[in-house]
Protein backbone atom coordinates (compact mmCIF):
# COMPACT_ATOMS: atom_id res chain seq x y z
CA UNK A 1 0.00 0.00 0.00
CA UNK A 2 1.24 3.51 -0.87
CA UNK A 3 2.51 5.81 1.83
CA UNK A 4 -0.10 8.33 3.01
CA UNK A 5 1.10 11.87 2.47
CA UNK A 6 -2.04 13.76 3.51
CA UNK A 7 -4.15 12.69 6.44
CA UNK A 8 -7.11 14.62 7.87
CA UNK A 9 -8.97 13.40 10.96
CA UNK A 10 -12.20 14.95 12.24
CA UNK A 11 -11.27 18.30 10.75
CA UNK A 12 -13.65 21.10 11.62
CA UNK A 13 -13.32 24.61 10.22
CA UNK A 14 -15.49 27.54 11.16
CA UNK A 15 -15.09 31.11 9.97
CA UNK A 16 -16.27 34.14 11.85
CA UNK A 17 -18.03 36.71 9.69
CA UNK A 18 -18.90 39.68 11.85
CA UNK A 19 -20.67 38.18 14.84
CA UNK A 20 -21.68 35.08 12.93
CA UNK A 21 -19.96 31.74 13.19
CA UNK A 22 -19.99 30.10 9.75
CA UNK A 23 -19.27 26.36 9.67
CA UNK A 24 -17.40 25.30 6.51
CA UNK A 25 -15.97 21.85 7.20
CA UNK A 26 -17.65 19.52 9.64
CA UNK A 27 -15.63 16.55 10.94
CA UNK A 28 -13.91 15.77 7.67
CA UNK A 29 -11.67 12.69 7.23
CA UNK A 30 -9.42 12.18 4.23
CA UNK A 31 -6.31 10.27 3.22
CA UNK A 32 -4.27 10.98 0.11
CA UNK A 33 -1.50 8.59 -0.87
CA UNK A 34 1.88 9.74 -2.09
CA UNK A 35 1.87 10.05 -5.87
CA UNK A 36 -1.89 10.49 -6.19
CA UNK A 37 -3.50 13.07 -8.48
CA UNK A 38 -6.71 14.01 -6.69
CA UNK A 39 -9.41 16.17 -8.25
CA UNK A 40 -11.63 17.89 -5.71
CA UNK A 41 -15.02 18.86 -7.10
CA UNK A 42 -18.19 20.36 -5.80
CA UNK A 43 -20.46 23.41 -5.98
CA UNK A 44 -19.37 26.86 -4.92
CA UNK A 45 -19.31 27.20 -1.14
CA UNK A 46 -18.93 23.50 -0.58
CA UNK A 47 -15.58 23.97 1.18
CA UNK A 48 -13.16 22.85 -1.57
CA UNK A 49 -10.84 25.82 -1.34
CA UNK A 50 -10.94 25.76 2.45
CA UNK A 51 -9.91 22.11 2.37
CA UNK A 52 -7.14 22.93 -0.10
CA UNK A 53 -5.93 25.80 2.11
CA UNK A 54 -5.78 23.46 5.11
CA UNK A 55 -3.86 20.80 3.18
CA UNK A 56 -1.47 23.48 1.87
CA UNK A 57 -0.84 24.93 5.33
CA UNK A 58 -2.33 28.31 4.47
CA UNK A 59 -4.97 28.03 7.17
CA UNK A 60 -5.41 26.17 10.43
CA UNK A 61 -8.39 24.04 11.42
CA UNK A 62 -10.77 24.99 14.21
CA UNK A 63 -10.27 21.44 15.48
CA UNK A 64 -9.06 18.09 14.24
CA UNK A 65 -5.74 16.71 13.04
CA UNK A 66 -3.99 17.45 9.78
CA UNK A 67 -0.82 15.57 8.95
CA UNK A 68 0.97 16.34 5.70
CA UNK A 69 4.38 14.94 4.71
CA UNK A 70 4.69 13.51 8.22
CA UNK A 71 4.14 16.77 10.08
CA UNK A 72 1.15 17.90 12.17
CA UNK A 73 0.05 21.16 10.60
CA UNK A 74 -2.69 21.79 13.17
CA UNK A 75 -0.02 22.21 15.85
CA UNK A 76 2.12 24.70 13.94
CA UNK A 77 2.32 28.45 14.46
CA UNK A 78 2.00 30.75 11.46
CA UNK A 79 5.80 31.10 11.29
CA UNK A 80 6.28 27.33 11.36
CA UNK A 81 3.62 26.92 8.69
CA UNK A 82 5.41 29.46 6.47
CA UNK A 83 8.68 27.53 6.75
CA UNK A 84 6.85 24.26 6.17
CA UNK A 85 5.14 25.61 3.03
CA UNK A 86 8.48 26.74 1.63
CA UNK A 87 9.85 23.20 1.98
CA UNK A 88 6.91 21.01 1.05
CA UNK A 89 4.18 22.69 -1.01
CA UNK A 90 3.86 24.33 -4.38
CA UNK A 91 0.78 26.42 -5.13
CA UNK A 92 -0.90 27.02 -8.48
CA UNK A 93 -3.76 29.53 -8.62
CA UNK A 94 -6.56 30.21 -11.08
CA UNK A 95 -5.20 33.67 -11.94
CA UNK A 96 -1.53 32.57 -11.87
CA UNK A 97 -0.62 35.18 -9.20
CA UNK A 98 2.72 36.02 -10.76
CA UNK A 99 4.57 39.20 -9.79
CA UNK A 100 3.80 41.57 -12.69
CA UNK A 101 7.07 43.50 -12.45
CA UNK A 102 9.32 40.41 -12.47
CA UNK A 103 10.12 38.37 -15.56
CA UNK A 104 9.30 34.67 -15.72
CA UNK A 105 12.74 33.59 -14.51
CA UNK A 106 12.64 35.95 -11.51
CA UNK A 107 9.09 34.79 -10.68
CA UNK A 108 10.17 31.18 -10.65
CA UNK A 109 13.22 32.09 -8.58
CA UNK A 110 11.11 33.60 -5.78
CA UNK A 111 10.75 30.45 -3.59
CA UNK A 112 14.50 29.89 -3.89
CA UNK A 113 15.18 33.23 -2.18
CA UNK A 114 14.24 31.41 1.01
CA UNK A 115 17.02 28.86 0.50
CA UNK A 116 20.78 29.19 0.87
CA UNK A 117 21.44 28.72 -2.84
CA UNK A 118 23.74 31.17 -4.59
CA UNK A 119 22.38 33.58 -7.19
CA UNK A 120 23.75 31.49 -10.05
CA UNK A 121 22.33 28.27 -8.58
CA UNK A 122 18.96 29.93 -8.14
CA UNK A 123 18.95 31.11 -11.73
CA UNK A 124 20.01 27.68 -13.00
CA UNK A 125 17.29 25.91 -11.01
CA UNK A 126 14.66 28.40 -12.12
CA UNK A 127 15.65 27.90 -15.76
CA UNK A 128 15.54 24.13 -15.30
CA UNK A 129 11.98 24.41 -13.93
CA UNK A 130 10.95 26.59 -16.86
CA UNK A 131 12.49 24.05 -19.23
CA UNK A 132 10.56 21.26 -17.52
CA UNK A 133 7.25 23.02 -18.16
CA UNK A 134 8.31 23.86 -21.72
CA UNK A 135 8.59 27.63 -21.49
CA UNK A 136 12.30 28.34 -21.11
CA UNK A 137 12.23 30.49 -24.25
CA UNK A 138 10.00 33.02 -22.44
CA UNK A 139 12.24 33.27 -19.38
CA UNK A 140 12.91 36.98 -19.86
CA UNK A 141 9.28 37.90 -20.52
CA UNK A 142 7.12 39.55 -17.92
CA UNK A 143 3.68 38.08 -17.07
CA UNK A 144 1.93 40.80 -19.08
CA UNK A 145 3.74 39.56 -22.17
CA UNK A 146 2.59 35.97 -21.76
CA UNK A 147 -0.64 34.22 -22.74
CA UNK A 148 -2.79 32.67 -20.00
CA UNK A 149 -1.46 29.19 -20.70
CA UNK A 150 2.14 30.40 -20.70
CA UNK A 151 1.61 32.33 -17.45
CA UNK A 152 0.14 29.22 -15.82
CA UNK A 153 3.15 27.18 -16.94
CA UNK A 154 5.38 29.77 -15.25
CA UNK A 155 3.25 29.46 -12.11
CA UNK A 156 3.65 25.67 -12.22
CA UNK A 157 7.41 26.08 -12.65
CA UNK A 158 7.41 28.33 -9.57
CA UNK A 159 5.49 25.65 -7.65
CA UNK A 160 8.00 23.00 -8.70
CA UNK A 161 11.30 24.84 -8.38
CA UNK A 162 11.89 24.15 -4.69
CA UNK A 163 11.14 20.46 -5.29
CA UNK A 164 7.81 20.52 -3.46
CA UNK A 165 6.40 17.18 -2.27
CA UNK A 166 2.87 18.30 -2.89
CA UNK A 167 1.28 20.53 -5.54
CA UNK A 168 -2.01 22.17 -4.61
CA UNK A 169 -3.84 23.78 -7.49
CA UNK A 170 -6.91 25.94 -7.07
CA UNK A 171 -8.88 26.00 -10.33
CA UNK A 172 -5.66 25.96 -12.39
CA UNK A 173 -7.56 25.92 -15.67
CA UNK A 174 -10.43 28.19 -14.65
CA UNK A 175 -9.08 31.16 -16.61
CA UNK A 176 -7.93 29.25 -19.69
CA UNK A 177 -9.48 28.22 -22.99
CA UNK A 178 -10.07 24.53 -23.58
CA UNK A 179 -6.87 23.93 -25.53
CA UNK A 180 -4.65 25.70 -23.00
CA UNK A 181 -6.52 24.03 -20.16
CA UNK A 182 -5.88 20.57 -21.63
CA UNK A 183 -2.20 21.41 -22.08
CA UNK A 184 -1.89 22.47 -18.45
CA UNK A 185 -3.75 19.40 -17.22
CA UNK A 186 -1.57 17.22 -19.41
CA UNK A 187 1.51 18.89 -17.94
CA UNK A 188 0.23 18.23 -14.41
CA UNK A 189 -0.40 14.62 -15.38
CA UNK A 190 3.20 14.25 -16.58
CA UNK A 191 4.50 15.80 -13.37
CA UNK A 192 2.39 13.31 -11.44
CA UNK A 193 3.24 10.24 -13.44
CA UNK A 194 6.83 10.87 -14.45
CA UNK A 195 8.09 12.96 -11.56
CA UNK A 196 6.02 11.44 -8.78
CA UNK A 197 4.46 14.68 -7.60
CA UNK A 198 1.38 14.37 -5.44
CA UNK A 199 -1.22 16.74 -6.82
CA UNK A 200 -4.50 18.00 -5.40
CA UNK A 201 -6.59 20.21 -7.66
CA UNK A 202 -9.85 21.98 -7.04
CA UNK A 203 -11.95 22.23 -10.18
CA UNK A 204 -15.46 22.73 -11.45
CA UNK A 205 -14.57 21.14 -14.75
CA UNK A 206 -15.47 17.41 -15.01
CA UNK A 207 -13.05 17.12 -17.95
CA UNK A 208 -10.26 18.42 -15.76
CA UNK A 209 -11.16 15.86 -13.11
CA UNK A 210 -10.68 13.13 -15.70
CA UNK A 211 -6.95 13.82 -15.68
CA UNK A 212 -6.72 12.85 -12.02
CA UNK A 213 -6.32 9.38 -10.57
CA UNK A 214 -9.11 10.00 -8.05
CA UNK A 215 -11.94 12.46 -7.78
CA UNK A 216 -13.55 13.62 -4.57
CA UNK A 217 -16.90 15.38 -4.37
CA UNK A 218 -17.77 17.82 -1.67
CA UNK A 219 -21.02 19.41 -0.60
CA UNK A 220 -21.86 21.51 2.44
CA UNK A 221 -18.48 20.90 4.04
CA UNK A 222 -18.47 17.15 3.75
CA UNK A 223 -16.94 14.66 1.34
CA UNK A 224 -19.49 12.64 -0.58
CA UNK A 225 -18.52 9.60 -2.56
CA UNK A 226 -14.90 8.98 -3.51
CA UNK A 227 -14.19 7.45 -6.87
CA UNK A 228 -11.10 6.23 -8.60
CA UNK A 229 -10.75 7.21 -12.21
CA UNK A 230 -8.99 5.19 -14.80
CA UNK A 231 -5.50 6.53 -15.26
Amino acid at each position, binding site marked *: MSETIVSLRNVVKHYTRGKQDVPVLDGLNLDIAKGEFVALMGPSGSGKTTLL*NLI*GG*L*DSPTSGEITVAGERLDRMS*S*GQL*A*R*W*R*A*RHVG*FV*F*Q*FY*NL*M*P*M*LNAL*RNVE*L*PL*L*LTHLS*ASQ*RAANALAALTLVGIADRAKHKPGELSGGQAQRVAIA*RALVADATLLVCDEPTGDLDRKSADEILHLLQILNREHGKTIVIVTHDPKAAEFGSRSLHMDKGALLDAGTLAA
Partner: protein
Amino acid sequence: MKYLPLIWANLWRKKTRTIFTLLSVAVAFLLYGALATLDYAFENPSAGVTGVDKLITTNKFSITLLLPFSDVQDIAAVPGVAVVTWLTWFGAYYQESKNFVFAVPIDTATYFDLHKDEFVVSDAQMAAFRNNRSGALVNSALMKKFGWHVGEKLPLHSTIWTQKSDGSLNWTFDIVGTFDAKDPTQASQQSSTVLFHYELFDEGRSFGKGQVGWFEERVVDPSQSPQISQKIDALFANSPNETKTQPAKDFAMSFLKQIGDVGFVLRAILGAVFFTLLFLTGNTMMQSVRERTPELAVLKTLGFSDAKVLGLVIGESLLLCVLAAVVGLAASYALIPVVHSVLQGVDLSHGEQPAGLGVAVLLAILVGTPPALRAMRLNVVDALMEKR
Protein backbone atom coordinates in the same frame (compact mmCIF):
# COMPACT_ATOMS: atom_id res chain seq x y z
CA MET B 1 21.19 41.58 -0.85
CA LYS B 2 19.40 38.71 -2.59
CA TYR B 3 16.09 40.46 -1.96
CA LEU B 4 17.27 43.69 -3.59
CA PRO B 5 16.02 42.86 -7.13
CA LEU B 6 12.58 42.07 -5.68
CA ILE B 7 12.53 45.29 -3.62
CA TRP B 8 13.79 47.31 -6.58
CA ALA B 9 11.14 45.83 -8.88
CA ASN B 10 8.40 46.56 -6.33
CA LEU B 11 9.60 50.15 -6.04
CA TRP B 12 9.14 50.71 -9.77
CA ARG B 13 5.76 49.03 -10.02
CA LYS B 14 4.16 52.45 -10.69
CA LYS B 15 6.95 54.38 -12.37
CA THR B 16 5.29 57.81 -12.48
CA ARG B 17 4.28 57.71 -8.85
CA THR B 18 7.73 56.57 -7.78
CA ILE B 19 9.45 59.29 -9.83
CA PHE B 20 7.25 62.02 -8.32
CA THR B 21 7.77 60.66 -4.82
CA LEU B 22 11.52 60.44 -5.36
CA LEU B 23 11.53 64.02 -6.64
CA SER B 24 9.57 65.38 -3.69
CA VAL B 25 11.81 63.58 -1.18
CA ALA B 26 14.93 64.69 -3.08
CA VAL B 27 13.79 68.33 -3.05
CA ALA B 28 13.06 68.07 0.68
CA PHE B 29 16.59 66.79 1.29
CA LEU B 30 18.02 69.48 -0.97
CA LEU B 31 16.30 71.98 1.33
CA TYR B 32 17.50 70.04 4.35
CA GLY B 33 21.09 70.08 3.14
CA ALA B 34 21.03 73.80 2.38
CA LEU B 35 19.16 74.88 5.52
CA ALA B 36 21.02 72.57 7.89
CA THR B 37 24.29 73.92 6.50
CA LEU B 38 23.10 77.48 7.16
CA ASP B 39 21.78 76.55 10.57
CA TYR B 40 25.17 75.07 11.45
CA ALA B 41 26.87 78.22 10.18
CA PHE B 42 24.68 80.44 12.36
CA GLU B 43 25.02 78.22 15.42
CA ASN B 44 28.77 77.81 15.00
CA PRO B 45 30.20 81.06 13.78
CA SER B 46 33.68 80.49 12.49
CA ALA B 47 36.12 79.96 15.31
CA GLY B 48 38.50 81.93 13.18
CA VAL B 49 36.46 85.14 13.38
CA THR B 50 38.95 86.25 15.98
CA GLY B 51 41.28 84.50 18.33
CA VAL B 52 40.52 83.32 21.82
CA ASP B 53 42.35 86.32 23.24
CA LYS B 54 39.78 88.83 21.97
CA LEU B 55 36.76 90.22 23.76
CA ILE B 56 33.99 92.47 22.53
CA THR B 57 32.11 94.97 24.64
CA THR B 58 28.66 96.10 23.50
CA ASN B 59 25.71 97.87 25.06
CA LYS B 60 24.17 95.43 27.52
CA PHE B 61 20.71 95.67 26.03
CA SER B 62 21.34 95.78 22.29
CA ILE B 63 24.26 96.08 19.96
CA THR B 64 22.26 98.68 18.06
CA LEU B 65 22.57 101.03 21.05
CA LEU B 66 25.78 103.05 21.07
CA LEU B 67 28.35 103.47 23.85
CA PRO B 68 30.27 106.64 24.81
CA PHE B 69 33.73 106.82 23.28
CA SER B 70 35.01 107.94 26.66
CA ASP B 71 34.63 104.37 27.98
CA VAL B 72 37.78 103.44 26.09
CA GLN B 73 40.00 104.99 28.76
CA ASP B 74 38.35 103.00 31.56
CA ILE B 75 38.50 99.74 29.60
CA ALA B 76 42.15 100.25 28.69
CA ALA B 77 42.94 100.71 32.37
CA VAL B 78 41.55 97.29 33.35
CA PRO B 79 44.44 95.03 34.31
CA GLY B 80 45.04 92.35 31.68
CA VAL B 81 43.71 94.40 28.76
CA ALA B 82 46.52 94.85 26.24
CA VAL B 83 44.80 96.85 23.51
CA VAL B 84 41.37 98.43 23.01
CA THR B 85 39.90 99.60 19.73
CA TRP B 86 36.44 100.82 18.74
CA LEU B 87 34.18 100.34 15.77
CA THR B 88 30.68 101.23 14.60
CA TRP B 89 28.33 99.48 12.21
CA PHE B 90 28.30 101.53 9.01
CA GLY B 91 25.82 99.44 7.01
CA ALA B 92 27.08 100.05 3.50
CA TYR B 93 26.36 98.90 0.01
CA TYR B 94 27.81 99.69 -3.40
CA GLN B 95 25.35 101.09 -5.98
CA GLU B 96 22.58 98.58 -5.19
CA SER B 97 21.45 97.19 -1.86
CA LYS B 98 22.28 93.66 -2.98
CA ASN B 99 25.95 94.66 -3.16
CA PHE B 100 26.59 94.48 0.56
CA VAL B 101 29.96 95.86 1.67
CA PHE B 102 31.26 95.40 5.19
CA ALA B 103 32.69 98.91 5.44
CA VAL B 104 33.95 99.63 8.90
CA PRO B 105 35.44 102.78 10.37
CA ILE B 106 38.59 101.95 12.35
CA ASP B 107 41.11 103.67 14.56
CA THR B 108 44.17 102.82 12.52
CA ALA B 109 46.71 102.51 15.32
CA THR B 110 44.73 100.40 17.75
CA TYR B 111 42.84 98.36 15.14
CA PHE B 112 45.93 97.07 13.35
CA ASP B 113 47.63 96.51 16.68
CA LEU B 114 44.74 94.35 17.82
CA HIS B 115 44.35 92.56 14.48
CA LYS B 116 48.02 92.56 13.56
CA ASP B 117 48.06 88.87 12.68
CA GLU B 118 45.01 88.98 10.43
CA PHE B 119 45.85 91.22 7.47
CA VAL B 120 48.48 91.29 4.76
CA VAL B 121 49.03 94.86 3.53
CA SER B 122 52.09 96.18 1.78
CA ASP B 123 54.06 98.77 3.77
CA ALA B 124 53.63 101.37 1.05
CA GLN B 125 49.86 101.00 0.92
CA MET B 126 49.60 100.98 4.71
CA ALA B 127 51.57 104.22 4.79
CA ALA B 128 49.31 105.67 2.10
CA PHE B 129 46.28 104.72 4.20
CA ARG B 130 47.71 106.30 7.34
CA ASN B 131 48.45 109.51 5.48
CA ASN B 132 45.10 109.94 3.73
CA ARG B 133 42.08 110.70 5.97
CA SER B 134 39.64 109.77 3.21
CA GLY B 135 41.62 106.67 2.26
CA ALA B 136 40.24 103.15 2.29
CA LEU B 137 41.85 99.74 2.34
CA VAL B 138 39.78 97.24 0.38
CA ASN B 139 39.91 93.46 0.40
CA SER B 140 41.47 92.28 -2.85
CA ALA B 141 38.60 89.83 -3.54
CA LEU B 142 36.11 92.71 -3.28
CA MET B 143 38.28 94.81 -5.60
CA LYS B 144 38.19 92.01 -8.14
CA LYS B 145 34.46 91.45 -7.70
CA PHE B 146 33.53 95.02 -8.57
CA GLY B 147 36.49 95.77 -10.84
CA TRP B 148 37.85 98.51 -8.63
CA HIS B 149 41.43 99.80 -8.86
CA VAL B 150 43.79 101.51 -6.44
CA GLY B 151 43.61 105.28 -6.96
CA GLU B 152 39.91 105.28 -7.82
CA LYS B 153 37.14 106.95 -5.82
CA LEU B 154 34.88 104.53 -3.93
CA PRO B 155 31.28 105.74 -3.49
CA LEU B 156 29.40 103.82 -0.81
CA HIS B 157 25.87 104.23 0.46
CA SER B 158 25.31 103.95 4.21
CA THR B 159 21.92 102.73 5.37
CA ILE B 160 22.28 104.59 8.68
CA TRP B 161 24.69 107.46 8.70
CA THR B 162 23.85 110.76 7.02
CA GLN B 163 26.62 113.26 6.33
CA LYS B 164 26.74 116.41 8.40
CA SER B 165 27.63 118.46 5.32
CA ASP B 166 24.62 117.70 3.10
CA GLY B 167 22.45 115.17 4.93
CA SER B 168 23.27 112.60 2.27
CA LEU B 169 23.77 108.92 2.96
CA ASN B 170 26.46 108.77 0.28
CA TRP B 171 30.09 108.61 1.37
CA THR B 172 33.13 108.70 -0.91
CA PHE B 173 36.55 107.23 -0.14
CA ASP B 174 39.88 107.00 -1.97
CA ILE B 175 41.06 103.48 -2.57
CA VAL B 176 44.67 103.66 -1.45
CA GLY B 177 45.46 99.98 -1.09
CA THR B 178 44.31 96.41 -0.79
CA PHE B 179 44.68 93.70 1.81
CA ASP B 180 44.35 89.94 2.05
CA ALA B 181 43.66 87.63 4.94
CA LYS B 182 46.82 86.23 6.46
CA ASP B 183 44.97 83.05 7.42
CA PRO B 184 43.33 81.54 4.31
CA THR B 185 40.50 80.15 6.45
CA GLN B 186 39.50 83.73 7.21
CA ALA B 187 39.45 84.77 3.58
CA SER B 188 35.68 84.42 3.34
CA GLN B 189 35.23 86.45 6.54
CA GLN B 190 37.13 89.36 5.09
CA SER B 191 35.98 89.07 1.50
CA SER B 192 33.59 92.02 1.65
CA THR B 193 35.52 94.27 4.02
CA VAL B 194 36.46 97.92 3.45
CA LEU B 195 38.43 99.69 6.19
CA PHE B 196 38.35 103.48 6.50
CA HIS B 197 39.28 106.10 9.10
CA TYR B 198 37.16 106.50 12.22
CA GLU B 199 38.07 110.21 12.42
CA LEU B 200 36.57 110.87 9.00
CA PHE B 201 33.43 108.96 9.97
CA ASP B 202 33.05 110.60 13.39
CA GLU B 203 33.57 114.10 12.09
CA GLY B 204 31.48 113.59 8.98
CA ARG B 205 28.33 112.06 10.45
CA SER B 206 25.41 114.29 11.32
CA PHE B 207 24.60 112.52 14.63
CA GLY B 208 26.13 110.17 17.16
CA LYS B 209 29.41 112.02 17.42
CA GLY B 210 31.56 110.74 20.27
CA GLN B 211 29.77 107.43 20.37
CA VAL B 212 30.84 104.03 19.16
CA GLY B 213 29.12 100.78 18.29
CA TRP B 214 31.37 98.45 20.26
CA PHE B 215 34.82 98.01 21.70
CA GLU B 216 37.21 95.20 20.95
CA GLU B 217 39.88 94.20 23.43
CA ARG B 218 42.87 91.92 23.28
CA VAL B 219 43.76 90.40 26.63
CA VAL B 220 47.23 89.47 27.77
CA ASP B 221 46.19 86.09 29.17
CA PRO B 222 43.24 84.40 27.41
CA SER B 223 42.62 82.23 30.49
CA GLN B 224 41.73 85.44 32.35
CA SER B 225 39.08 86.47 29.80
CA PRO B 226 36.04 85.68 32.00
CA GLN B 227 37.42 87.71 34.92
CA ILE B 228 38.40 90.60 32.65
CA SER B 229 34.94 90.59 31.06
CA GLN B 230 33.39 90.85 34.51
CA LYS B 231 35.70 93.69 35.49
CA ILE B 232 34.89 95.67 32.34
CA ASP B 233 31.15 95.25 32.81
CA ALA B 234 31.46 96.14 36.49
CA LEU B 235 32.95 99.49 35.50
CA PHE B 236 29.70 100.53 33.84
CA ALA B 237 27.19 98.79 36.10
CA ASN B 238 24.26 101.03 37.03
CA SER B 239 25.39 103.64 34.50
CA PRO B 240 23.13 104.82 31.65
CA ASN B 241 25.25 102.70 29.31
CA GLU B 242 25.74 99.32 30.91
CA THR B 243 27.92 96.94 28.93
CA LYS B 244 28.12 93.30 28.01
CA THR B 245 31.57 91.89 27.38
CA GLN B 246 31.91 88.50 25.73
CA PRO B 247 34.33 86.48 23.62
CA ALA B 248 34.42 87.60 19.99
CA LYS B 249 33.00 84.27 18.83
CA ASP B 250 29.85 84.68 20.95
CA PHE B 251 29.50 88.23 19.75
CA ALA B 252 29.52 87.10 16.12
CA MET B 253 26.65 84.76 16.84
CA SER B 254 24.59 87.34 18.72
CA PHE B 255 25.25 89.80 15.92
CA LEU B 256 23.84 87.37 13.37
CA LYS B 257 20.88 86.78 15.60
CA GLN B 258 19.94 90.44 15.45
CA ILE B 259 17.93 89.57 12.38
CA GLY B 260 15.99 87.03 14.44
CA ASP B 261 16.58 83.54 15.73
CA VAL B 262 17.87 82.28 12.43
CA GLY B 263 18.37 78.77 13.71
CA PHE B 264 14.79 78.57 14.96
CA VAL B 265 13.41 79.85 11.65
CA LEU B 266 15.50 77.36 9.68
CA ARG B 267 14.54 74.48 11.93
CA ALA B 268 10.88 75.50 11.75
CA ILE B 269 11.01 75.43 7.95
CA LEU B 270 12.72 72.04 8.00
CA GLY B 271 10.17 70.76 10.49
CA ALA B 272 7.30 71.84 8.27
CA VAL B 273 8.93 70.29 5.21
CA PHE B 274 9.49 66.95 6.89
CA PHE B 275 6.09 66.91 8.55
CA THR B 276 4.51 67.31 5.11
CA LEU B 277 6.89 64.77 3.64
CA LEU B 278 6.01 62.28 6.33
CA PHE B 279 2.37 62.29 5.27
CA LEU B 280 3.09 62.45 1.55
CA THR B 281 5.55 59.57 1.49
CA GLY B 282 3.66 57.64 4.14
CA ASN B 283 0.47 57.87 2.12
CA THR B 284 2.28 56.79 -1.05
CA MET B 285 3.81 53.79 0.68
CA MET B 286 0.49 52.83 2.23
CA GLN B 287 -1.27 53.09 -1.13
CA SER B 288 1.48 51.10 -2.83
CA VAL B 289 1.24 48.27 -0.29
CA ARG B 290 -2.56 48.28 -0.41
CA GLU B 291 -2.44 47.80 -4.17
CA ARG B 292 -0.09 44.86 -3.78
CA THR B 293 -2.09 42.98 -1.15
CA PRO B 294 -2.58 39.88 -3.37
CA GLU B 295 1.10 39.84 -4.34
CA LEU B 296 2.17 40.04 -0.70
CA ALA B 297 -0.25 37.20 0.03
CA VAL B 298 1.40 35.15 -2.72
CA LEU B 299 4.81 35.76 -1.16
CA LYS B 300 3.46 34.47 2.13
CA THR B 301 1.97 31.48 0.33
CA LEU B 302 5.41 30.68 -1.07
CA GLY B 303 6.79 30.59 2.46
CA PHE B 304 7.89 34.18 3.14
CA SER B 305 7.43 34.67 6.88
CA ASP B 306 5.62 37.66 8.41
CA ALA B 307 8.99 39.12 9.42
CA LYS B 308 10.37 38.77 5.88
CA VAL B 309 7.37 40.54 4.39
CA LEU B 310 7.76 43.29 7.00
CA GLY B 311 11.43 43.57 6.06
CA LEU B 312 10.67 43.76 2.34
CA VAL B 313 8.31 46.72 2.81
CA ILE B 314 10.67 48.52 5.20
CA GLY B 315 13.47 47.83 2.71
CA GLU B 316 11.44 49.40 -0.06
CA SER B 317 10.82 52.47 2.06
CA LEU B 318 14.54 52.67 2.91
CA LEU B 319 15.54 52.37 -0.72
CA LEU B 320 13.09 55.09 -1.74
CA CYS B 321 14.06 57.56 0.99
CA VAL B 322 17.82 56.97 0.98
CA LEU B 323 18.05 57.07 -2.82
CA ALA B 324 16.15 60.35 -2.94
CA ALA B 325 18.10 61.74 0.01
CA VAL B 326 21.43 60.97 -1.68
CA VAL B 327 20.28 62.86 -4.78
CA GLY B 328 18.96 65.82 -2.74
CA LEU B 329 21.95 66.01 -0.42
CA ALA B 330 24.39 65.75 -3.33
CA ALA B 331 22.58 68.66 -4.98
CA SER B 332 22.74 70.70 -1.75
CA TYR B 333 26.45 69.89 -1.48
CA ALA B 334 26.96 71.19 -4.98
CA LEU B 335 24.99 74.33 -4.10
CA ILE B 336 27.19 75.32 -1.15
CA PRO B 337 29.54 77.50 -3.24
CA VAL B 338 26.51 79.32 -4.67
CA VAL B 339 25.01 79.93 -1.20
CA HIS B 340 28.41 81.04 0.00
CA SER B 341 28.73 83.60 -2.76
CA VAL B 342 25.35 85.06 -1.69
CA LEU B 343 26.09 84.96 2.04
CA GLN B 344 29.57 86.34 2.13
CA GLY B 345 31.14 86.33 5.53
CA VAL B 346 29.34 83.18 6.65
CA ASP B 347 31.44 80.05 6.72
CA LEU B 348 29.52 77.05 5.41
CA SER B 349 30.34 73.53 6.49
CA HIS B 350 29.95 70.41 4.35
CA GLY B 351 29.40 68.39 7.48
CA GLU B 352 25.60 68.40 7.48
CA GLN B 353 25.11 66.20 4.41
CA PRO B 354 26.11 62.87 6.03
CA ALA B 355 23.77 63.61 8.94
CA GLY B 356 21.00 63.96 6.33
CA LEU B 357 21.35 60.27 5.52
CA GLY B 358 20.51 59.50 9.12
CA VAL B 359 17.39 61.64 8.78
CA ALA B 360 16.52 59.71 5.60
CA VAL B 361 16.77 56.39 7.42
CA LEU B 362 14.58 57.71 10.23
CA LEU B 363 12.05 59.01 7.71
CA ALA B 364 12.06 55.65 5.89
CA ILE B 365 11.35 53.77 9.09
CA LEU B 366 8.60 56.18 10.10
CA VAL B 367 6.80 56.05 6.74
CA GLY B 368 7.54 52.38 6.10
CA THR B 369 6.45 50.93 9.42
CA PRO B 370 2.64 51.37 9.15
CA PRO B 371 2.35 49.72 5.69
CA ALA B 372 4.94 47.11 6.69
CA LEU B 373 2.90 46.18 9.75
CA ARG B 374 -0.19 46.00 7.59
CA ALA B 375 1.63 43.68 5.18
CA MET B 376 2.97 41.59 8.06
CA ARG B 377 -0.49 41.10 9.55
CA LEU B 378 -2.02 40.23 6.20
CA ASN B 379 -4.18 37.12 6.35
CA VAL B 380 -3.18 35.00 3.35
CA VAL B 381 -6.54 33.30 2.89
CA ASP B 382 -8.51 36.57 3.04
CA ALA B 383 -6.06 38.31 0.69
CA LEU B 384 -6.24 35.48 -1.85
CA MET B 385 -10.03 35.56 -1.64
CA GLU B 386 -9.87 39.26 -2.65
CA LYS B 387 -7.90 38.29 -5.73
CA ARG B 388 -10.52 35.73 -6.68
